[in-house]
Structure formats: structure tokens, C-alpha cells
């Protein structure tokens, strides 16, 4: 891709991303979602974050299911979940999950 083509792609990505983030802020109070919609928005983080993470965990290569205990992604995710529930500290959940993942993958050499 040429330099100009690359600049156009980055510029286009920046424009659509900023447009999505800004349009409702720009309108301020003039366009408001109904209370029902506001309530629906409470479910967005759980839905989006789960939809991104679960396929990465269960199909680490993007193609094949890996539901065994040797799957480092699954072991690490379970480690994160247990720590998050037990400690309620996000940092502990991230660090502990990473530790389990790295142990599985590089310590025990599971794939």
C-alpha cells in the first residue's frame, strides 16, 4: 500500500472512530435515549467484553475448539475469574491469570 493509501486508511479509521464517540456528545441533551434504552445500556459492558474474550479462550487459534484442561487460555481465564471473585481486585485477577497462562504455556509447555 502506498504512503497516501496508508494515510487515507488511518485518516478514515480515525474519522469513523471519533464520529461514533462524538455524535451523541455533540448533540448533548437534544437527542436522548428513552429510560428503557438507558437501562439496556447497563448490560453493554458484560455483553461486549464476554463476546470478545470467550472465543479467544475456547478457540485459541481461531479455528479449533480446545476445551481441555491443558489449554493455557482456558486455565488462565479460570485463574483470573477465581481471583477476581475471591479478592475483588482487578490487578490481582490480571496478574494471577497471566501467571497461570505463562506457567501453562512456557513452564509446562502445554499448547
Amino acid at each position, binding site marked *: *500500500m502506498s504512503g497516501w*493509501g*496508508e494515510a*487515507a*486508511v*488511518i485518516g*478514515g*479509521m*480515525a474519522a*469513523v*472512530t*471519533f464520529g*461514533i*464517540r*462524538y*455524535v*451523541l*456528545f455533540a448533540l*448533548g*441533551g437534544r437527542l*436522548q*435515549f428513552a429510560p428503557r*434504552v*438507558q*437501562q*439496556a*445500556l*447497563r*448490560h*453493554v*459492558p*458484560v*455483553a*461486549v*467484553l*464476554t*463476546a*470478545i*474474550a*470467550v*472465543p479467544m*479462550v*475456547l*478457540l485459541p487459534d481461531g479455528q479449533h475448539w480446545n476445551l481441555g484442561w491443558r489449554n*493455557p*487460555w482456558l486455565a*488462565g*481465564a479460570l485463574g*483470573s475469574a477465581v*481471583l*477476581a471473585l475471591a479478592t475483588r481486585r*482487578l*490487578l490481582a*485477577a*490480571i496478574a494471577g*491469570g*497471566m501467571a497461570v*497462562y*505463562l506457567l501453562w*504455556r512456557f513452564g509446562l509447555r502445554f499448547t
Partner: protein
Amino acid sequence: MNTVSPRPAAWTAFAREALHGARDTVPLLLGAAPFGLIFGALAAASPLGVGGALAMSALVFAGSAQFIALSLLSGGAAGWVVVLTTWVVNLRHLLYAASLQRGVARLPQRWRLLLAFWLTDETYATVYHRYQHDGDGAALRHWYTAGSGAAMYVNWLGWTAAGALLGQASPALTHLGLEFALVATFVGIVAPLLRQRTSLAVALTAAAVALAARGLPYKLGLLAAALAGVAVGVWLDARSGGGR
């Protein structure tokens, strides 16, 4: 010494709120760091190069969209496909903006521009978490939000630059397994919320649809999964709320 500012106490309060926002974002800064590093390393080795990697992080500032764009560009996708995919992947920010809209409606446009540019998953999660029970009570929430956004922006740009430089020096960096940090972060955020039965149903639905629809083009599976999860949440809310 004379006081230059007419209201020094106010500026102290602004700075304190901004710092508070940055501090509450620290776990997410750590979660984002490996991704900035990996994005920088991969992008520097791709046709984008170091300049393209930095430009994308500075102007687009949307991690998952940047990764997807990188893999599309490396696969020789057309520019318009990359831009359209970015739009789809980032549509979720519309819902974040709607959720924060009431808080910014009273601000001048320059504040709205800034806060919109810095609106990411991480800053939304941080701000949402703090003001969940507060209603509109917090008068300085825009400073808190800006502190979180600025911290994420500097962090993302810095790690992209570090990754781009390290990636040039040692290509092995991209095989360290650091990509798991995204999953660890998301699981850590979501797991405690699953004690609520409605949230558990939302998560199970989103997961099932994401898995079933993962073959859809343009990452539409992600959007379908999010909408299905929210729909189930709304349905359960309506059932438990009686007539409301």
C-alpha cells in the same frame, strides 16, 4: 508570592479529580500495556512501519480496531474494508457515549470533543464504575474522566512507541504470550458482575452468539453477540420489573 489564579483552590480540586481518575485507571493501564507493546512491534514489522504504528495509535486510539486493521492490511485487504470494519468494531462506543451523555450535556463543546476522543472501553469502565450510584451529583466528573482518558492515551502511545522500537530490535518479542493480558483484564472485570443472575444470562447469551457467529465477515459476530446479550438483559429486566 502573589496568587496568579483567581481561584487556586478550584484548580487544586480539578487536578485532584484528574489524578484520581488516572489512579483508578492504573490496573487497566497495565492491562493495555502489553497490547500497545505487541501492536507497536507487529505494526513496525508490517507495511505500516514505525510511523504508521504511531500515527494509528495517536489518531485512532482504539486497540481492538487497530489489531484487526493490522491483520487486514497485512492480508492485503482494501482500504475501505479496513475503515468499514473499524466502524463496526467501534460501534459499541456509541452505547458508551449514550450512557455518559447526561454527564457531558452541560459542558462546553471543547470538553465534549476531548472526552469523546478519549472515550475507550477502559475509561468508560472506570467512569461507569465510579458514578454508577451517584446520578448527576459529581460536579467534577469531567475532570475525573479526562484524567482517566489522558492516562490511557499517554500509556497507549508510549507502549506503542516502545513496541515499535523493540520490535525492530528483536522480533521474538511478539511470541511472548503477552496477548493473554486482554483476556485476563476482561475476565477480571466481568467475573464479579456475574453474581447477578441477569448479568450471568447476558454473558452466557453473548458468549454463545459470539461462538456461533464467529465466522461472519467484518467482525459482525461481535456486534450480533453484544446485541443478543443486551436483548436478553432487557427481557429479563422487564420480566422481573413487572409492569415497568
